[in-house]
């Protein structure tokens, strides 16, 4: 099993991620101010930081990874969340592209609605597994964090983003 994502846990800030839009940020769990903390729903191994949308209505992080040849199956997982009853959210997508840059497969996790979070501030795990589309050369991993309506803080949150494949080399 090979992990393809660099710094999926935000422990190195935004290292490894390209900011495509907005003002994504790495936020500390001990920040307070209503952000998710150590006692809120989230991964057990949450470390010290998670990804947040910052102060833009749409913040997007992306990394493009090379798919190992003969990768057979994949698992995509992420902890995605938001704030209380607000509908801000985080969506993780993976698109498998072939040598021409043509999409061969798409996987979408989230975003979680407020009701799916039980209106709790925190992060919740979402996972998808499947067969890697043959001919996949790259996987484009995109974390989109959005703010619902007006306001300042984009309270889409994400942590422990993972894309693993088996059977590759």
């Amino acid at each position, binding site marked *: 099993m090979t992990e393809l994502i660099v710094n999926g846990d935000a422990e190195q800030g935004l290292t490894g991620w390209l900011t495509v839009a907005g003002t994504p940020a790495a936020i500390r769990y001990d920040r307070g101010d209503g952000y998710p903390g150590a006692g809120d729903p989230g991964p057990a191994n949450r470390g010290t930081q998670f990804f947040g949308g910052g102060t833009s209505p749409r913040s997007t992080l992306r990394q493009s990874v090379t798919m190992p040849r003969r990768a057979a199956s994949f698992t995509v997982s992420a902890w995605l969340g938001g704030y209380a009853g607000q509908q801000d959210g985080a969506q993780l997508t993976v698109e498998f592209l072939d040598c021409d840059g043509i999409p061969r497969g798409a996987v979408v996790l989230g975003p979680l609605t407020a009701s799916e979070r039980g209106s709790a501030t925190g992060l919740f795990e979402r996972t998808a597994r499947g067969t890697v589309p043959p001919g996949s050369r790259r996987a484009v991993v*995109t974390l989109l964090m959005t703010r*619902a309506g007006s306001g300042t803080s984009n309270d889409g949150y994400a942590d422990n983003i993972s894309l693993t494949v088996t059977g590759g080399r």
Partner: protein
Amino acid sequence: MTQPLPDVVEVSWTVYSDRALRRRVAHGTVAASNLLGHSVHAVVRGLLPGRQYYFRFSALGRTSRVGRTRTAPVGPVSRVRFATANCQAFHDGFYAAHRGIATEDVDFVVHLGDYIYEHGQVGGHPVRDHEGPAILSLADYRRRYALYKGDPSLRASHAAHPWFLTWDDHECANDYSGTEGAAPFVARRAAAYQAWYENMPVRAGSALEPQLYRQRRWGDLLDLTVLDLRQYRSAQNLADGTILGTSQKKWLLDQISSSRDTWHCWINSIMLSQLARPGGGYYFTDQWDGFRAERAEVLGHVASSGMEDLVVVTGDWHSAFVDDIRPDFDNRDAPVIGTEFTAHSVTSGAYSAEWNTVNGPVMGAANPHLKYFEGNRYGYDVYEVTPQRWSTHMRVIGSRGDAASPVSTLTTFHVDRGKPGSYEDPGSVASPAQYRRV
């Protein structure tokens, strides 16, 4: 209904240069994945420009029907013919218009959006209806596309011609702005966009954020500028609102700045021209009227850059309009810089004949740039373009209730190259319409 398919199905494709499928010119296989609904988007290399080709697919021991396509020409071109279709609510009737398009001698077809509708069953006594309630999930959108694409006339239209595509709102949700950030909408948008990509003959580097805006050249005769007026737009009626989004606007302004001497056709899902109400306000600010500052900037750039021979083709309204385009629609001294043809819908319901009779002249009086309005019919437009003249033929069907309803030409408008503004063909100026500027 779910088909019991493996995660990956190998699909082979073959391209021929002749209708009899004797001369094979390209072939290949694609692994169709369940992650994209087992759809196939093949890249075909080695084709010659300006040629007709035929193709078919094989998978799991079955072979598809034969499709026809055409590559864009390069160099001097003396004529191009193409059709536009828009707004094809399944429950509002049969696709006699697509049956007509399938038999037209056109080089390509453009869909201007509202290919599907997202709402549930309409009930009552429609000639046919949606398969279930409003669609929200990826499975829902896939099922809805399967319903629409099961129509034999639509399939025939696809098989007969290559298509260029944009979209409007109903491929996702009514009157939506693509930048809306609430989680339920973000999830719905992703499902809608993916299903659209899976079902459309389009090349894009992403199924989830497909870049629709692009320019395609038809030799030296025509530059097609495809606009995406949904994915990047802000809310309506904001002082700093945008219908294009930052990147697409810059790209469009650059296209205008570097435009060559040819016909320029903008593929525009939703009305560009101002449609003011008498006494103030606008009929619909979901169209460009809700993004007035950006419209003024774009059209002002057309005027100042000296770009000529602009024709904008539009859908959405379920009625036919012909407008003079001016950089400032409120200034009757502003120059005419182009023509907008808004086409009848394939099926989606228009206003009543009574509304049209009353309001055609009302809209005409409030909008001096409006030249023509007809809202009692359904169909599609065919454009015939030569280096000297652009002609828009409004094709109409007899009845949406008849899948084989005959097609006729209601009227034809012309635009002469180098002369801004349109004029109706003298042979059809007596055709029925609810407004004509005389």
